[in-house]
């Protein structure tokens, strides 16, 4: 499968997709850390994708989203924003509203945090 198609599938199929530098176990960037912690605090079932293994991951992602920086957070297939927006939404309570709206009120009961790797093409 083409790289762009793989990324699109993650966006479309994962309830909460976090494209980040590093993994939740080994975060390699302060902004990725901020986004991850805001999502965790809201109880979001995060699926993380590390963009660092290949620069093309980031290029293709930004081509899809039109968003130039990492991290990028998608909920129910929709771009929510980067670290600043996710933190702002978390602080105002809107993040939990968005999660409930997109995933249902029991979204916290969803599966645990996980990591998916893109396959080199």
């Amino acid at each position, binding site marked *: 499968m083409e790289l762009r198609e793989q990324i699109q599938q993650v966006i479309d199929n994962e309830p909460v997709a976090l494209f980040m530098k590093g993994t939740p176990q080994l975060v390699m960037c*302060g*902004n990725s850390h901020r986004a991850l912690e805001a999502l965790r605090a809201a109880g979001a079932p995060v699926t993380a994708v590390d963009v660092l293994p290949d620069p093309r991951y980031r290029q293709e992602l930004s081509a899809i989203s*039109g*968003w*130039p*920086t990492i991290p990028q957070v998608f909920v129910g297939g929709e771009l929510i*924003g*980067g670290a*600043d*927006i996710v933190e702002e939404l978390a602080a105002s309570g809107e993040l939990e509203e968005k999660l409930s709206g997109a995933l249902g009120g029991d979204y916290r009961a969803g599966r645990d945090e996980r990591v998916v790797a893109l396959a080199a093409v």
Partner: protein
Amino acid sequence: MSVERLRGLLVDAFPEAEDVDVLDRTGTGDHFLVTVQSTRFSGLGLVDQHRLVYDALAEPLADGTIHELRIKTKGD
């Protein structure tokens, strides 16, 4: 990149802005916090608000001059 130059790009892009503030977070000219207050943001979602700021700074973001950018936008 200097704070003055970054601020200049934002003022050019948002001439109507009530407030444009740039903070060099690390003193190294590549990690910035920018704050823009403009009526252009009114009625827009945060994603679209931040997109306008990214558009204004597309060049220094693309060429790596800005390594990290934090954005705070405010409507009127």
